[in-house]
């Protein structure tokens, strides 16, 4: 039930964001976010953005995996 999916914020109106999740547009409330802007990736759970995806760290994790494991 704690399933959360990453999506890209493509629009914001009031405290509701329009989020692109794999090509489908969904509404997500931003009431639990300190800051969020168009272009941010966020994790969506039960109609709310619950946290940002730190894209730099995601790339860093993938780079570490390549370096540590796939040599």
């Amino acid at each position, binding site marked *: 039930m*704690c399933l959360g999916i990453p999506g890209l914020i493509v629009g914001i109106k009031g405290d509701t964001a329009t989020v692109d999740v794999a090509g489908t547009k969904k509404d997500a409330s931003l009431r639990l976010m300190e800051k969020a802007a168009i272009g941010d990736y966020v994790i969506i759970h*039960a109609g709310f953005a619950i946290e940002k995806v730190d894209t730099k760290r995601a790339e860093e994790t993938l780079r570490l995996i390549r370096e540590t494991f796939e040599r």
Partner: protein
Amino acid sequence: MKYIDEFRQKEAAQAIIKKIRSLSRKEVNIMEICGTHTHSISKYGIREALPENIRLISGPGCPVCVTSATDVNRIIEFSRTRKDAIIATFGDMMKVPGTDSSLQEEKARGADIRVVYSPLDSIEIARNNPDKEVVLFAVGFETTSPTVAATMLGAKEAGLRNFSALSLHKLTPPAMKALLDSGEIKIDGFIAPGHVTAIIGARAYGFLAEDYKSPCVVAGFEPIDALLGIYMLIRQFEEDRCAIEIEYDRVVTWEGNTRAQEVINEVFEPSDSLWRGIGNIPGSGLSFRQTYSEFDAEKRFSMPKGVDAEPKGCQCGSVLKGLITPDKCPLFAKACTPEFPIGPCMVSSEGTCAAWYKYRRIA
């Protein structure tokens, strides 16, 4: 899908498994405490891919499953007696059996019970039905409780007078502590839930390393995340280290989502809570604060007491504590199936029994 597909690559998964196999020597029990992990581990065959000295045990990580039979019976009784009420609930809760019925059966008998994707949907139901009392049957861990709390803030701002919730939210760290204190099961380390921790912050597990010498890695839910989390734990075991580490650092921080924490604290306060199979765990639930009592279904109605009787023969309690695997339950895949579930762990797609049935059943 961005930030999902990259964490499902087969070659990377195989490389991590190889590394785990070459590194791991000790016999260890690792508990995952999130239904989404349980599902992912079964789906991608991670348990089978690991060497035999690493045992993965599924814990009480599915909020639907840990909701007590008492509380299911209470909401069923409420739906029978309050004909002016609409009950809003998350989909997984519909089929969860109480002692002699489920919300789905009550709906078939005429009770007005509606499935919501977001708690916000229940506000819309309340707005559209001003002559009805709308009660949200609110289950969930720390990932979900802020969404319900934010919904309550919205309901207060909107001045809704026909909306309330039965707060059965559960907190993860007290349950981990209760399992370790019970001494019933040996757990050497934990895979902690990524999205719960996105809210509460990884610091919340400090007591595991300090008081219990139990390593803990907060992991994401894709197969690479789960494997990397296990690798990080194995490294701690083999190096005789004991620390809290974050694998899922693209989403999880040490502090967590402080805004979400504030919203929870505005509406709720910690309270005791009854867990299926485990019993009462002090400080493991969330109750409405006095300032939000108008939205507290417990106070608004005289909620039925409900009896605590598990379905006959059901071993979900032992499954939830990691004491037995689902195939050791005599009902598993015989009397109890996803089509006709007897216990909650077979109902929810994240339940341990459902995951075993779907991915591990040998015909």
